[in-house]
């Protein structure tokens, strides 16, 4: 399919606008000089990704992204940033890093690897226009039927991570403090 065919399809225009907005806000996440702004650009990038899922008629994934990432994870990010330090305007602390060149190289290499993987596997495949997504019931049955084992394993790993996180974050009380706590 040539570029002219591609651009003649109105849906591709929508895709181009959303993809561009997502990439630009993703870029701003790492370049913006204020941590809160960076987190807010992350919201925009995630919203763009959700919109791309919607274009593919993957409704469930799109709204999971909104509910879990925008509604909970980013809110926790912002909560954490604001409860520790949240300067308005220009952030005085240095958010930059000396080794920006190696970091750029690593991320470019990762991008190249992902692109290579995608293109070598699906480069020539064309798909028909997607008109209807998978009904949620089918997704649910797949998740709790055929894929129940990986699903449970992921759940277990997440639980382990949660317990680990709590163990690291919690501080054991000294005997004196413990006594004081019990007396309450």
């Amino acid at each position, binding site marked *: 399919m040539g570029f002219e065919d591609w651009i003649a399809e109105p849906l591709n225009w929508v895709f181009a606008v959303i993809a561009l907005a997502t990439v630009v806000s993703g870029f701003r996440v790492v370049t913006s000089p204020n941590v*809160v*702004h960076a987190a*807010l650009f992350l*919201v925009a990038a995630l919203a763009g990704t959700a919109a791309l899922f919607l274009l593919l008629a993957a*409704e*469930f994934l799109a*709204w*999971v992204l*909104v*509910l879990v990432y*925008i*509604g*909970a994870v*980013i*809110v*926790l990010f*912002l*909560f954490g940033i*604001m*409860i520790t330090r*949240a300067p*308005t*305007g220009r952030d005085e602390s240095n958010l930059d890093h000396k080794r920006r060149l190696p970091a750029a190289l690593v991320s470019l290499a990762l991008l190249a690897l992902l692109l290579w993987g995608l293109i070598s596997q699906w480069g020539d495949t064309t798909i028909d226009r997607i008109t209807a*997504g998978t*009904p*949620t*019931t089918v997704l649910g049955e797949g998740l709790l039927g055929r894929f129940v084992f990986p699903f449970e394993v992921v759940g277990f790993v997440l639980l382990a991570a949660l317990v680990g996180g709590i163990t690291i974050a919690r501080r054991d009380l000294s005997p004196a403090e413990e006594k004081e706590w019990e007396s309450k």
Partner: protein
Amino acid sequence: MSPWLALAIWLLVVATIIPVMGMAIGYAEMKISAHMQSRIGPYFAGGRFGWAQLIADGVKFFQKEDLVPDNADRPVFKMAPVLVMVGTVGLFVVIPFGPGLTPQNLDLGIFYALAISSIGTIGVLMAGWSSGNKYSLIGGLRAAGQLIAYELPLVLAVVGVVILAGTMSLDGIVQAQISWFSEAGWAWGMPFVIVQAVGLGVFFIASLAELSRIPFDMPIAESELVMGYLTEYSGFRFLFFFLAEFANMFTLSAIAATLFLGGYWVPGVPDSILQFVGPLVLLGKIALFVFVSIWLRWTFPRFREDQLQTLAWKWLVPISLANIIVTGILKVVI
């Protein structure tokens, strides 16, 4: 009808419903609270009963200057009310107002509603942070902590209904309540509140907290935080927050009515009539929820921050999980 025309009509309907319902609920709040405290409330505006009080207030807000504090982060400060409104307007997409009167009968229905309403939290945090004011920041933080804590019971309380109905589409849930006994040949359905009273209780408490209403109004506690994250807002941006809050009350009550009270449906009335009375029936059920939440507001004092978290994590989450387990077992057994 072309999809664009339908979209334009729905947008017009929503653009009318939000301010009208916002004002109606605001007026009800003023009047009911006044009578609960042996006052009269608004009296003069509009000639009788002070019915035009909220219109006068709205006009007043529009005349005010759009102030942005010097310390504020301008773009974020200006975006915040818009984001809060997006979460509210988005909810209208899936509410079934009558048979065939759902703007978009999404397969994901209730899941979409919960996802889109969580966007408002970001708006509240943005408002709190960008104002450059410590009262606002503390208010924003409290709001975030509260909304995260109560998002969970809100979602879990819905699961019981979804298990019973076997679908997440809101219209499908209403249909499931209508045709509950259809296999037995009875024409009478069953509103899910009968078997999901626990779910309704958890959902209602959690939605009060999501709306930051008393007894959960720590984010805007006037006696401690001036007005919380709203402190620096004035004019029509404040109006945006105000309308979004009352419109949110409307939409969350509509969802509660749809999930637990059968939405637009009254037992024994055929579809052909429901098509016209349906929206009014739904409005009546919404009014019931709105009245109860106003009633609670003027009855209870404010929670403490730790009591709020205890209620969410130690009570509501376990109760709603137990509700899911029991509902699931009963669904399989019966």
